[in-house]
């Protein structure tokens, strides 16, 4: 953190890349995909607001370091193969 007025830039910008800042700890519910039922439509991938879903042959792969557990993927899934499991279980 800059210590003096002179070290602070005039424009408020954040140079720390978001891949470094782990926001997965905010999550209360964890999305789990039943890849047997998954039809690979990639609605979850398209709608994820945090870019936390990657595409794979077997179905969605979650980046749990950044997924905040919003549940949008589970909500948009047409075959309801994504379940939101409480993190404290």
């Amino acid at each position: 953190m800059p210590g003096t007025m002179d070290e602070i830039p005039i424009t408020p910008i954040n140079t720390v890349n978001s891949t470094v800042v782990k926001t997965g700890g905010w999550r209360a519910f964890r999305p789990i995909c039943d890849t047997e039922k998954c039809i690979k439509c990639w609605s979850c991938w398209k709608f994820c607001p945090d870019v936390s879903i990657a595409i794979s042959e077997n179905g969605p792969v979650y980046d749990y370091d950044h997924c905040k557990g919003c549940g949008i993927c589970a909500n948009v899934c047409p075959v309801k193969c994504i379940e939101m499991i409480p993190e404290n279980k």
Partner: protein
Amino acid sequence: MVKELLTGNKATAYGAMLARAQVIPAYPITPQTTIVERIADLISEGRMEAKFVKVESEHSAMAAAVAACNTGARAFTATSSHGLALMHEVLMWAAGARTPVVVVNVNRAMGPPWSVWADHQDAMAERDTGIIQFWCENNQEILDTVIMAHKVAEDPDIMLPALINQDAFFLSHTSEPVDVPDQEMVDRFLPPFNPKEKLDVDDPKGFGSLVMPPQYMEFRAKMAKSMDMARDLIRKVDREWEELTGRSYGGMMDMYRCDDAEFILFGAGTMMSTAKDVVDDMRNEGRKVGIARLRILRPFPFEEVRYLADRVKAIGVMDRTYTFGQGGPLYNEVNAQLYNHTNPPFTKNYVIGVGGRDVIPRHIRSLFDDLEKVQENGYGEEGEIHWWGLLDGSTPKEEM
């Protein structure tokens, strides 16, 4: 240089064209609409190289302008009254993000009661946003100011948005002869916008993101410092413009026949042009009167106010709006500078011309007469804040 007959709105569009504004997100509102129309024309005619962005509201217009500025593009927009009020949140953002968007505001009354006529409520309500405020009295000044405002706002030490004010209809829809400067001369005066920090996909950064309490205060203090530094830059840019065009707007404040004046009226916008004419007549009669016209509201011209305070017996402050519960806004601003001043002059507030009501030469003369009288005998029944010309009998009938 070509002399053309231009309305305030056309002068605004020409100013944006000559300043080489690159992105124009705008939403139409009376009486600003013809600015948007004229800029769209200039782009379609190929006279202006800019991206015109049709947006769904003024809030979006300002948001798009801020984003354009973040990419390093010169952004310009225009609005009025309720449109400016809708921009309020993003004016704060533009200032905090240090994006020097230039906005022309056609001063119009706030409703209800619904009104489209000249009134300064809209801009006065934006005093605290961190936006530099210029005020104009004629169409030439509007065109020149659009160019000058970009230069001030985009300076690496300043990097704050700028608001340029012009009175509804009295300027926006009234034609006046305006010198349109050569593009080549304007290019020499105003270099391309080149901010230090830009949006860059190859070097991603978060713009305007979260800071913790140990840093937020420093960012705001830096804004305050830049705003204070703008005073000297505005004076310098005004001098540079004068060298190129022969036209000066007084730097931080437009003082007219103030040098040996004893009684001064201070105010903003077109009514001060009328007042200057009246001062000429009264000077011929031997009255020591002068006009101080608001040129810059933010940063406030405190040195200029104190300069006048050292010389005059009384300052009458004309406000074309009101701050409910606390007098006219300019009256507050002037008095705030005088409290710690040695032997401050007498001041009185005249709320006048609200909602586009005409301010004519007879009114200006009456204000000077009243100011001389109350300076001698103290505030009369009306007190220190006088709503001049109100239909309540407080203003002598022959002076309405």
